[in-house]
């Protein structure tokens, strides 16, 4: 069968009309695909305008290939374009009749394309050469000498009257620029004896540029310079700090001891199983959970050092994305954001801390309390029982002294992302730079802890950690005969009470070089043994032994 299908002639006319510009993201690919199906010669269908290219020319985005239509809609239109991956990648676009969701999705995409085009062309003129009359403070782009690439951006300096700067004579061909953002740290500045931009140090700084290499432009409204237009998905791998700010702060990180003793490290997960009671040590912002706004720091007045620490922590953790989540924190979220979830116990395994740090336990407590919200009913029951004990106990005490015991007797919920994110971020901000009382080392001494913290925040923000609504994770196993409290089994992640099979399997396999046959036999034996015993191990009977 030869594929020589053709499109309705009016449609072909439209596609091949160069005066009809087709604006969209990756339009070229769309046109090429149609061209191929119709067996038209190359270049038949023309008039493509790629919106990402259009945006890059105006310095709205820095990278074409990673910019999506949704990014542009957010940047330019301040609107969220829902890209439902399931629909987009469905296999039903060839159906005889499209359903309402499909139509809406298809229509939104193309409507957004047109709106983005109009908005860009209306509000963001192409960067234009400097005029003699261009006033100070005008935003400018600094191009590489071949004019192909933007190396930095800033504003024309107020110090235009200077005749020399940094030993360079300023002629009518030059202009002073306050550099506010570096795009290419390695780029060399000709007028400064080919110094690299990186070598100028902290932003902002002033450099002398040739006027030819400057273009005025309209920057995006400042708040909307999100790093996530260029940010790629980073998960379970060390975060590479791309932004120049991070590179600058690497040197600051060097100040802290990188070679912290490895054997003294303990993961937060391990800490969660031990006795977590201990004195509440002071932090400069005592975290209280009634607060809703995460980054606001209140009394006691922080010292300059503490502010510097906080600033450092903010930079290490990356931009606060809580503003991108739903804002109403009093409102519980009843949406399922993902049915594939990060095992929370594994999550706590991502951060390793110095076991001897004076604030480790306190940090672990705070982090745990941000994640796990006790069930009201179980909480009350536990407290009622605790009040009758001698000495009296309470949920707050028990969860520290007997964490495993409490976990099997009180159900907990991990709150939805827009509530969890700010809480956890605040714990990281507060404790990441907290210093040990004797050694003065901070709790997160190396990048590995900060990266883990960033990854955790990222997972939370995507909704991969919060409990799924309307899914019952707990099963009541029975009643604890000693306390009369219900005993639960939790299906969240690998079972917390039982430690899960995954950690056990290791020690149950043959240790030394053996045949493949034997390892497979052992694994099979392990499986059947485990599956037959697990009911006994997790039944209430085992708690009443």
């Amino acid at each position, binding site marked *: *069968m030869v594929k020589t299908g053709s*499109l*309705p*002639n*009016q449609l072909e006319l*439209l596609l091949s009309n160069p*005066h009809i*510009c087709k604006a969209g993201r990756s*339009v070229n690919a*769309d046109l090429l*695909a149609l061209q191929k*199906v119709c067996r038209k010669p190359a270049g038949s269908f023309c008039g493509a305008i790629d919106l990402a290219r259009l945006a890059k020319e105006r310095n709205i985005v820095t990278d074409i290939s990673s910019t999506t239509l*949704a990014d542009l809609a957010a940047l330019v239109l301040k609107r*969220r374009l829902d890209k*439902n991956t*399931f629909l*987009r*990648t*469905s296999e*039903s*676009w060839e159906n005889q009749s499209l359903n309402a969701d499909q139509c*809406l999705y298809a*229509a939104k*995409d193309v*409507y*957004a*394309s*047109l709106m983005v*085009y109009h908005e860009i062309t209306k509000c963001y003129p192409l960067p234009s050469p400097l005029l003699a009359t261009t006033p100070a403070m005008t935003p400018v782009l600094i191009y590489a000498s071949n004019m192909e690439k933007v190396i930095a951006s800033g504003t024309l300096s107020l110090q235009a009257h200077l005749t020399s700067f940094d030993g360079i004579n300023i002629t009518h061909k030059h202009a002073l620029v306050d550099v506010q953002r570096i795009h290419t740290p390695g780029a060399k500045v000709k007028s400064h004896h080919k110094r690299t931009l990186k070598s100028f140090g902290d932003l902002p700084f002033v450099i002398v540029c040739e006027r030819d290499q400057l273009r005025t432009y309209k920057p995006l409204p400042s708040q909307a310079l999100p790093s*996530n237009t260029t940010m790629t998905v980073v998960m*379970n791998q060390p975060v590479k700090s791309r932004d120049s700010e991070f590179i600058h702060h690497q040197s600051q990180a060097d100040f802290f001891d990188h070679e912290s003793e490895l054997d003294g490290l303990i993961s937060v997960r391990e800490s969660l199983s031990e006795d977590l009671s201990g004195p509440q040590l002071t932090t400069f912002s005592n975290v209280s959970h009634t607060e809703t706004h995460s980054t606001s720091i209140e009394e006691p007045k922080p010292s300059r050092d503490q502010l510097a620490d906080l600033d450092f922590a903010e930079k290490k953790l990356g931009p606060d994305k809580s503003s*991108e989540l739903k804002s109403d924190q009093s409102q519980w979220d009843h*949406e399922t954001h993902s*049915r*594939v*979830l*990060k*095992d929370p116990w*594994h999550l706590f395994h991502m951060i390793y801390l110095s076991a001897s740090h004076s604030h480790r336990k306190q940090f672990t407590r705070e982090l745990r309390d941000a994640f796990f919200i006790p069930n009201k009913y179980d909480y009350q029951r536990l407290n009622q029982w605790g009040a009758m004990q001698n000495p009296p106990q309470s949920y707050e005490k028990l969860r520290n002294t007997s964490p495993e015991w409490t976990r099997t007797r009180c159900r907990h919920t991990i709150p939805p992302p827009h509530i969890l994110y700010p809480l956890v971020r605040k714990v990281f901000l507060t404790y990441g730079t907290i210093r040990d009382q004797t050694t003065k080392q901070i709790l997160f001494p190396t990048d590995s802890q900060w990266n883990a913290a960033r990854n955790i925040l990222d997972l939370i923000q995507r909704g*991969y950690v919060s409990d799924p609504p309307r*899914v019952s994770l707990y*099963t009541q196993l029975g009643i604890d005969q000693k306390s009369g409290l219900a005993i639960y089994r939790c299906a969240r*992640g690998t079972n917390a009470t*039982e430690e899960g099979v995954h950690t056990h399997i290791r020690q149950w*396999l*043959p*240790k030394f*070089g*053996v*045949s*493949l046959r034997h*390892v497979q*036999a*052992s*694994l*099979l*034996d*392990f499986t059947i043994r485990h*599956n037959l015993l697990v009911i006994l191990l*997790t039944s209430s009977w085992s708690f009443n032994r």
Partner: protein
Amino acid sequence: MDADGAGIGPRDEEYSNDDENDPEAVENVEDGSLPGNSGPRITRPHTRLQQPGWLTDEFERLVKDSKRRDSEGLPPLYQQGLFWFPTRAPFFILRKNSHVDPHELYRPRFFLWDPLCFNDISCPNCRRPLTRQQHIPAPRRVVDINSTFWMIGYRYRCHHCPLANGRSVTFRSWNCQIMDKLPTQLTTEFPACLSHRSGISKGLFEFMRSCFQNGIGSKQFADMLWVQHLLAYSNVKIQYLLHVESRRESMDRWSGQKFANFKPFEDTGPTGRHGYTPSSNWLRDMYDSFLETHQQEINQHMSMLSGDICAIDHSHKVNCRNVLLRNSSKQSINSKVTKHIARVNGEQVFTGLLTVTNSLSEIRICNFVATKSHSQFVDALSRMRESLTLYGHKQPIIFYTDNMNDKQLLESTFPSLHNNVIPIEKYAHLPALNIPDDVQVFVKSGVQSINDAVSTILSEVPEDGSELVIGFDSEWNVEIGPQGFVRSSGPTAIVQMAFKKRVYILQVRRLLLLRECKL
């Protein structure tokens, strides 16, 4: 010591009155309750050992005793409700006799296995009844936890099957084909796991499984077993030596009575203990073949478990150290995966262990993954999806993972994970983009209606040659591969255009298809 698969002490095949040398019979099938398992089979030309007299004498006595059958055909032992012959304890032997030879204290335990007493057994070949021919001329040795016991068996003959090489067709009473025909209530009483020539007790075998599961290797286990046997033997030796001492101090001092030496455990002389424990290789082989025979059942058991809330885990640490292949098995597997390998002591073959557990913490999948590619466990996951349906379980509603990179793979394997999911969009803080009410959306499919729609745009192209801009997009079918990447994308299915206050969705795929078919 045990590199060739032998254990400590004389092996079974070294006895000249081994079953193999039994001239009267032909075994159709390999012996042993575990098919496919052949213990160390080393043919040695040298003279075979004689089973010691203390053993054969007792054996003959018990066989003779068992010939006296009652009206139901039961030997005296079975009449008393016993499978095991009672054994006198060394204490009583020493108490009764002033002079005792060490071998009198060995007191072998005997087990009588003659299931034909309880059931008619039909011939595995011709299904006609078997008859008892005679006892098997030598006892069968079985190693127990700290001692050895011996089994007395019978040869069952089929009178109907044609002769093979002029010999009649017979079966030993513990032949696995015979065992298969017996009711489970009866076979449960059978105390041994047999290989071709050797055997260990069921209790010891199950204990070995537990040991292996708790990280005690086969080498260590073989050593433990050997030590346990030595210990039990030494206890008898102490009893004997204390007895000798007490005799010396009494009247024997004057009578000049000589006492025999208590021989070493492994002594194979006529009065030696002929002590034996199997090698680690043999034990491991028994274990492996047992599990291989039961693989089907274990997998079946696993397949029937639920899986509504699952947790998937890849342990990469597990086997880096553990699965180091040696010798022959190494070459075959190594060749495939050499790229991943860089180890000091041996070569790493597997990069990970994949486990999936359900909400009850039961293991639903437990597989080694040989390469980093996901395709390895896609199969395992797909089988899980199918078995959940097959056994009437719900498809997973939640999947916990230690690696969020699995998300797409899991979602494509289990479509149930898509149900009612509203992913968090990148710009959740922004209001959603909606099409205003004054914008009309048209869906067009026929040639004519598409032409009509498009011409409304064409008619607005300015005469002066200036440009007109429309929003443009197209959609096509996408097939997602198991790893979450686009496997293939189909040809353009629809074309969308936005112009002024109108949005057109043009279904062009069908038109293109129609024309294809006409040709």
